[in-house]
């Protein structure tokens, strides 16, 4: 098969798709958030957002090789939490402390025995973006579409068999963040992935720094200024000033609204009822849901 990879630039990717749809030939398109691959009768054209360094693939290969010998963790995707907040009204908070776990996912994989020390050290030597991409590759998820005569005739999802190791790191990060939240007490503001934001309570900061150190995770602490929250019907927007190269720079950050347990439950119920009208009993569906 003839293969070619190009950077997504101008409208090359879109134009290629439009062309294939217009001429009506059968083709396959496999896309993720970062790449799009077209397969047409012996030809493969790949478009990527950015070219990754050889080192990223080397990191990924090392991680994957270590994970081969490990049992795949069981993860409930619906229980994964990337962010937590309880912002309900507009508020100006002022000074705020941000504590970030460094290389959180890689450190978790190492501390919990999934990857070897050499692999961990090799990952940590690279820049942040490289580390993120290499570990993120574990959870690669692609949508596969089959086109004919310009229309999608079938689709399926291709999920990496190492995805659960990545989600394990997500789950453990959330557990650690949950613990830090407890230690913050009233100083707690919000959590975003591997970072926690709190009011300038030095005692709370001491408690969380002591805890992170005790469980063996590297972290960084930053002081932010002029922190404020604006609430709209679709999101909470957080603004703050952050010191970047000796200057205070404004950083806006959107936080999605937290879906309530009621909403989750009702949607589950709606889908169960719909399936039950397709000859499956409600009790079958509930027991299926619980056993997932």
């Amino acid at each position, binding site marked *: 098969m003839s293969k070619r990879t190009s950077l997504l630039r101008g409208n090359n990717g879109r134009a290629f798709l439009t062309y294939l749809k217009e001429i009506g030939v059968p083709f396959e398109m496999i896309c993720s958030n970062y790449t799009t691959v077209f397969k047409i009768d012996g030809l493969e054209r790949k478009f990527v957002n950015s070219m990754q360094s050889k080192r990223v693939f080397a990191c990924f290969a090392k991680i994957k090789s270590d994970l081969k010998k490990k049992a795949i963790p069981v993860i409930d995707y619906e229980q994964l939490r990337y962010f937590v907040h309880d912002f309900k009204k507009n508020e100006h908070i002022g000074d705020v402390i941000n504590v970030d776990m460094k290389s959180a996912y890689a450190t978790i994989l190492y501390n919990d025995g999934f990857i070897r020390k050499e692999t961990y050290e090799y990952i940590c030597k690279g820049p942040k973006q490289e580390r993120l991409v290499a570990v993120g590759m574990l959870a690669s998820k692609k949508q596969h579409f089959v086109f004919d005569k310009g229309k999608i005739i079938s689709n399926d999802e291709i999920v990496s068999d190492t995805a659960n190791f990545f989600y394990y790191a997500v789950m453990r990060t959330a557990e650690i963040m949950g613990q830090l939240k407890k230690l913050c007490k009233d100083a707690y503001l919000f959590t975003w992935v591997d970072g926690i934001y709190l009011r300038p309570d030095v005692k709370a900061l001491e408690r969380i720094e002591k805890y992170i150190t005790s469980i063996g995770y590297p972290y960084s602490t930053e002081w932010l200024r002029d922190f404020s929250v604006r609430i709209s019907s679709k999101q909470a927007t957080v603004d703050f000033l*952050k010191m970047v190269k000796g200057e205070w720079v404004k950083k806006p950050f959107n936080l999605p609204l937290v879906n309530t347990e009621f909403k989750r439950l*009702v949607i*589950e119920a709606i889908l169960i009822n719909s399936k039950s009208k397709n000859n499956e009993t409600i009790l079958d569906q509930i027991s299926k849901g619980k056993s997932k």
Partner: protein
Amino acid sequence: MPKRKLTPKLKSFLKENRFKVRQADYAGDALQYLQRLRKSAKAAKKRKESTAKVGNVIIPRDSELYEVLETSAAIKGETVAAFIRKNKKAVQALMTDGRIVMQRETSYLINDINRLPKRNKIYINEVETGRGDAIYTVQNFTSQAMHYTSTVVVMYEVSYDLTGNMYINIPQLEEFDDLVEMIEEGDMDEDDNELLDFLNDMEGVVVVSSPKKSS
């Protein structure tokens, strides 16, 4: 003399005539069986006639809403009344809107589309859309947002009606496509954050951009 022995013949007779016979005519096993039959018949009648009340509004048992609340309560292991009592405000909102709205991250939304029961339909901007096309629209939107801005997460506003049809609402989809095309044609600079500002204000989606990249 009251009948005591529960023979198959008597059992079948009692089942047919549970409210016609006199209780005093039976004793022992036969009486116990008759009492059980009457009790379960009464409970079934009560269940059939039962309704749920939220504030002053009665939700009839044969309504979609009642079925949804009943199943939700069953998942939670609660009675319908207790479930409604604990979630009164949310149930009232559901009664008014007839739809339940959630924000879902791209990969979760694609999972939701894939696991939607076959009988249910998907609408994007109120237009019925096939599953493959819906997934393609969502994936394509997210990829472009991530490619041309510092977006790291896209959450979509998704709603379900009570029968399980799914509605994805991205009203400014065409304007977004126009802006992307302007960048692709070189008529707009992708570094000037115009597309990100547009996404931040766009209805139906919440984008989270990397604070490290945005300015």
